[in-house]
């Protein structure tokens, strides 16, 4: 084993597992689950091992497609510090979620299909993490899209699930179109798609900075799609139709993290494009605020968490735009992976306990029925809300501090979001676990099996202490605090945390139904309605025109007319088939005479 072979093993083990499960998974449930978990665990162990190895060669590659000097497509892996940390996040979360899935999926249909999908998902995400060039990243980027499509549409016989998976795929496609254009821009300017080469060629852009800005913003479109930023965030809440462990994986380590990771990967390029970073900052800032507003009025336990994910991703994207290095946003990605995965797995545990009821207004008083899940959710909620000393507190406040220093307006917007975060997180916690049971299911709820609780425990610990380890212990990231932070900032954040929790306590501790009703937030600021209107009226109109052209121009004029013409000629010629041998001989004779005349008359 060496640092050269380890990344390849980490990358391809899940693919091998997926293929094997596809062929033999039908035979036995434990086999398919075992294979997937073994692949994830292998990756996990190797990732941790790799992290503690001394830095070796940072990138290994060979040429996959070679079109001469003009265009070479390398397949290569980078194993710098960023990739190592991300490998740990992805494989560790994956191992825990896979394990949890044994419990969650034990009574569900399509068991082997589910685990094959998970393994493929992991493979795709690891490809993005290890990619050392845009093209390879794009390939795996699309693979993530495909595998998320498979997993979100796991219950494909349900219309809403099928629609949600389709929507996730199509909305991502819009962002990926920009991403691909951005890659082409970079290739056109530098003649390479390898990150390191592009970074070296940044001086080329000096005379024409707008080109770099446009290219960077186009690449950022990929992030907008994959990391569910405004205005392409609509797919993420709908992707809650998938099984809960999938949501957990999707929101914590794979898929949505990919967008932020990509920005961190091209951080040196972004540093050279301050205008592009402005765009990124505004998109991130508004996403984080708007999604938090929407989260305060959702009723579905998973949707609340989905909007909170969008909001937290907004923080990370904002962090990319305002931090001095990639360490700060990745720090938040790291802690967010732990506590958001934890919260989703808790939600899964609640959903199983509630016999697949997801409306929080039908739950209540679950803390007695599911004490362990309650404790784990508390840990996750404290971290998400940014309670002092938990992981979310350190990472989120770091980004907010940088945002306030660099972009004061967006910074204070992010501060306000922190208050909202505390509010909606504890609204969820209080409504689900405190109060009175509001439904028969809530009275008969039961704690989940041990195999689902172990991953909760494993995630609760880093959710609480990861922030301390990084800031005080210097693990994983070399973070940098801004120097000129307004002194009042931290007090404001503490006050907002207290206000958010207190407000939720007052409003929701014993509420039988939602005492606050803000239709705009409950209806997600009507963005989905606007999209529906657009699709129904404008896109469908265009589709009708194209359908007409397809039917009458392509089908009729280009296909049907020549075919019918040939047939008619053939039909006319059929009447020469007399069936009489002497007639044929006569035609033959005429033909010979004609031919002779034609040849000899010259």
């Amino acid at each position: 084993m060496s640092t050269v072979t380890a990344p390849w093993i980490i990358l391809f083990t899940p693919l091998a597992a997926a293929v094997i499960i596809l062929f033999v998974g039908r035979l036995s449930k434990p086999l398919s689950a075992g294979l997937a978990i073994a692949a994830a665990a292998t990756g996990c162990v190797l990732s941790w091992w790799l992290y503690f190895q001394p830095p070796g060669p940072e990138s290994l590659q060979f040429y996959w497609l070679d079109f001469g000097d003009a265009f070479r497509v390398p397949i290569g892996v980078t194993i710098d510090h960023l990739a190592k940390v991300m490998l740990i996040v992805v494989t560790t979360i994956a191992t825990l979620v896979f394990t949890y899935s044994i419990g969650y999926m034990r009574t569900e249909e399509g068991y082997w299909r589910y685990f094959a999908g998970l393994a493929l998902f992991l493979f795709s995400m690891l490809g993005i993490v290890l990619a050392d060039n845009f093209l390879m990243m794009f390939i795996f980027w699309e693979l993530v899209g495909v595998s998320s499509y498979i997993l979100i549409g796991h219950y494909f016989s349900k219309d809403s699930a099928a629609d949600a998976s389709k929507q996730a795929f199509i909305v991502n496609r819009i962002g990926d179109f920009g991403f691909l254009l951005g890659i082409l821009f970079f290739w056109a300017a530098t003649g390479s798609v390898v990150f390191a080469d592009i970074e070296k060629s940044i001086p080329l852009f000096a005379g024409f900075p707008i080109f770099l800005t446009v290219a960077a913003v186009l690449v950022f479109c990929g992030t907008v799609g994959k990391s569910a930023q405004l205005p392409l965030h609509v797919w993420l809440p709908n992707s809650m139709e998938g099984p809960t462990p999938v949501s957990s994986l999707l929101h914590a380590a794979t898929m949505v993290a990919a967008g932020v990771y990509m920005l961190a990967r091209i951080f040196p390029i972004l540093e050279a494009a301050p205008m592009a970073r402005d765009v990124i900052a505004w998109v991130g800032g508004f996403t984080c605020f708007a999604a938090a507003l929407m989260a305060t009025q959702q009723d579905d336990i998973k949707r609340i968490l989905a909007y909170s994910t969008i909001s937290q991703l907004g923080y990370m994207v904002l962090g990319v735009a305002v931090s001095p290095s990639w360490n700060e946003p990745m720090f938040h990605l790291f802690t967010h992976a732990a506590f958001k995965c934890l919260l989703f797995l808790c939600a899964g545990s609640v959903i199983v306990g509630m016999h697949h009821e997801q409306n929080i207004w039908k739950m209540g008083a679950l803390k007695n029925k599911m004490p362990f899940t309650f404790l784990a959710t508390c840990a996750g909620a404290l971290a998400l809300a940014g309670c002092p000393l938990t992981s979310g507190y350190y990472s989120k406040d770091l980004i907010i501090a940088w945002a306030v220093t660099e972009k004061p307006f967006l910074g204070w917007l992010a501060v306000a979001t922190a208050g909202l975060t505390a509010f909606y997180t504890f609204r969820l916690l209080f409504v689900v676990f405190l109060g009175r049971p509001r439904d028969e299911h809530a009275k008969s709820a039961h704690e989940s099996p041990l195999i689902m609780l172990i991953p909760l425990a494993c995630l609760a610990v880093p959710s609480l202490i990861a922030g301390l380890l990084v800031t005080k212990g210097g693990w994983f990231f070399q973070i940098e605090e801004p120097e000129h932070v307004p002194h009042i900032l931290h007090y404001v954040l503490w006050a907002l945390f207290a206000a958010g929790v207190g407000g939720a306590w007052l409003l929701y501790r014993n509420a039988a139904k939602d005492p606050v009703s803000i239709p705009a937030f409950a209806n997600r600021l009507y963005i989905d309605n606007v999209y529906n209107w657009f699709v129904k009226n404008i896109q469908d109109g265009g589709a009708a025109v194209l359908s007409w052209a397809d039917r009458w121009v392509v089908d009729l004029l280009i296909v049907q007319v020549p075919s019918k013409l040939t047939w008619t000629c053939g039909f006319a010629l059929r009447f020469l088939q007399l069936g009489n041998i002497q007639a044929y001989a006569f035609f033959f004779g005429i033909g010979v005479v004609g031919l002779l005349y034609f040849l000899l008359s010259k």
Partner: protein
Amino acid sequence: MPTLAHYLLVSGLLFSLGLAGVLLRRNILVIFMGLELMLNAANLSLVSFSRFNLMEGLPNYNAQVFVFFIITVAAAEVAVGLAIIVALFRAKQTIHVEDLDTLKF
């Protein structure tokens, strides 16, 4: 003393008779005989060309050898053709070509 033209005239007459037989007669056996007549007309013209095309005082024997081949192959063809006609008669109980128009549209 007959010349090449006489031979070719006879050959042409034979060919025309054969062709007329093939085109006009209804009995397949007669049509077959007409075909053989056309073959032999061709043979006759080949032989006469050979006889009158002297090279260094000798006829060109290539054409005569060619005629032997044609006679041989024609014999084989007659054997096959007659066999087919017999089989046809057994199947259809007729050898009139007007009754054999199954392939008509």
